[in-house]
């Protein structure tokens, strides 16, 4: 069992402001069923532009529910400008701290707030915070580069493990760990050689040229171990049709259309994984049947 503070337990057992605000000025929805936690935040402003009413609905563990509850208490009565300044650390502090592995719950709170404010500013046209757009680094959890940069900067993170704790990136297959490392290195401007060797493990470093047979085997194995289980969990499947040089032809079966990261085509996700595990120059194409 996690080591939660009394405040976390109190907010979990007696969450404040549960539900959805009617006719909201701001709506923020982040997370997903696939990732294991999700938060829907709604608020309404009063005549003075202060957050008069705010509610949440959360799917997630104890600290996800407590973080959501804390968030609503933190922003109640604040103007948008004041609310915008709230960081994930403020949420964690309000709760007397969160276990390191659960910090992503506070980050989810901040993201939902950001999304709701974005919604407010755009009159409901934009529903995603900027940080959740752009290049995806972690395909397992759909975490973007800008989101990783943000948690590294705001929380002064120095290891891949910490980044995983704060935004889940790198917590699935682990294929993106070298990318996360590069981001940390760039932001912290610090040589990773200062870190203990197990923290700077780099998966891409030792790749040798592959023979054709090895490549096909590795592609099949990557599909079997890294991609298929996720698709099957959603009732879909993937089949390797052909490999010509670096061109990989695959077919999707069953229900892959609605997947965890629906903003990207499935072929892109598969391509990214194959590039991580096989070679950098793989191009994935979808066979049309």
């Amino acid at each position, binding site marked *: *069992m*996690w080591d939660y503070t009394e405040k976390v337990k109190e907010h*979990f*057992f007696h*969450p404040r402001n*549960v539900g959805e605000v009617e006719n909201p000025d701001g709506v923020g*929805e982040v997370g*997903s*069923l*696939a*990732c*294991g*936690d*999700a*938060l*829907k935040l709604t608020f309404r402003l009063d005549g003075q532009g202060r957050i008069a009413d705010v509610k949440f*609905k*959360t*799917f*997630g*563990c*104890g600290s*996800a*529910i407590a973080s959501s509850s804390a968030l609503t208490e933190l922003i109640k009565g604040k103007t948008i400008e004041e609310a915008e300044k709230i960081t994930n650390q403020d949420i964690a502090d309000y709760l007397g701290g969160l276990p390191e592995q659960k910090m992503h719950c506070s980050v989810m709170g901040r993201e939902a707030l950001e999304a709701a404010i974005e919604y407010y500013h755009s009159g409901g046209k934009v529903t995603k915070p900027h940080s959740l757009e752009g290049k995806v680094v972690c395909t*397992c*959890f759909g975490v973007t580069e800008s989101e990783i940069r943000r948690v590294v900067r705001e929380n002064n993170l120095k290891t891949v493990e910490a980044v*995983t704790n704060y935004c*889940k990136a790198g*917590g*699935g297959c682990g294929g993106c760990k070298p990318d996360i490392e590069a981001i940390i290195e760039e932001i912290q401007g610090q040589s990773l050689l200062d870190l203990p060797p197990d923290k700077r493990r780099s998966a891409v470093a030792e790749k040798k040229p592959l023979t054709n047979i090895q490549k096909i085997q590795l592609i099949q194995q990557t599909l*079997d*171990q890294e991609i298929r*289980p*996720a698709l*099957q*969990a*959603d*009732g879909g499947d993937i089949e390797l049709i052909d490999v010509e040089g670096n061109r990989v032809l695959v077919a999707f079966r*069953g*229900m892959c259309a*609605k997947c*965890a990261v629906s903003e990207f085509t499935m072929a892109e996700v598969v391509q990214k994984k194959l590039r991580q595990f096989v070679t950098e120059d793989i191009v994935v194409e979808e066979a049309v049947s």
Partner: protein
Amino acid sequence: MKTIYLDNNATTAVDPAVLDAMMPFLTTDYGNASSMHAFGGRLRHNIDQAREQVAALLHCCPEEIVFTSGGTEGDITAINSALLAQPEKHHIITSRVEHPAVRTTCRMMQKRGNRLTELPVDELGRLNLHQLEAALTDDTALVTIMWANNETGVVFPIQDIAELCRAKGVQFHSDSVQAVGKLPVNLRKTPIDLLSMSGHKLHAPKGIGALYIRKGTPLAPLMTGGHQEFGKRAGTENIAGIVALGKACELAQKDLSGENERIRRLRDRLERTLLRDCPDARLNGDPDNRLPNTANISFEFIEGEAILLLMDEKGICASSGSACTSGSLEPSHVLRAMGVPFTAVHGSIRFSLSRFTADEEIDTVCRELPPIIKRLRQLSPFSPKDRAPGAPVERPEQIRL
């Protein structure tokens, strides 16, 4: 508040009779069984007796039993040995739903240059034996497949698998940590070569187990050193643990079918009531081939850790396959391998009973759980409309390839 302990697949209470049996070896009889003096040497007799008790439960010869530190050590010894003792073979076959002790070890062997086949399971968690047969080659050193799954309780057709491996001349190991004491095991009838079991799953303490090694099966020991355990497992014997395991096996054998029938009835009542009283709940695992003590139920649209915390407040202990409880960020590999949809995987709860589970305890759980589920549903932004269209809510009967 009394604790209601429904997490017996994680570990069990030490039976008071087991504690009594082991106590002298932690106090007055602290000798070393390998000593020349009688004070230690006479304890050899207690080890021999325990070996007979374990062998009686498994229906094998006492010399085929080697005491270990638990299930994990047995699993690792078997896998490691199969490759070392048959250096010309480099292939292992296992299933996708093994305990980490087997899964991680097999993957490590793969990293060291061996070939690994992880057989898939269908929606009910069942294996397809044709796939196993097709995967067997002359290069296969070992098939390692668990007897019963710790998360779902699904029981694999071990008799068929063992006979298949025997016919092809391939070593077969079964992680039977969850099966021993819950299912009849007869190694005279079932041609398993290596079988691991663990004391703390059948009311002995943690840190003691046994590995069955069929006569004639070559063994490369994992623990090398002294000559203890026929030279197959070095290290001064954990006499107290060994005596405890022997006693626990004797107790388990006493009324194996009667006790397990009682447990099965309790489990069935718990399961029926929860599935009836909690909307959007589904059973995970093959209902027809399951351990009598295990129920794995998914409560859709809510998360397992939150359920466990609210249960804990009522003194009820169980476990979950959700990401937050798995120690990683990903939910149970067992449920994922079965294709349990994301709507359900994070809200899975495993209830596992034992012979110490009382009727009234099941009544309490049946009463306390539905309001907990309802309360978390009110917090959740998800509902049945969020099911992926066409996602397999009902499980197709045919086996998926």
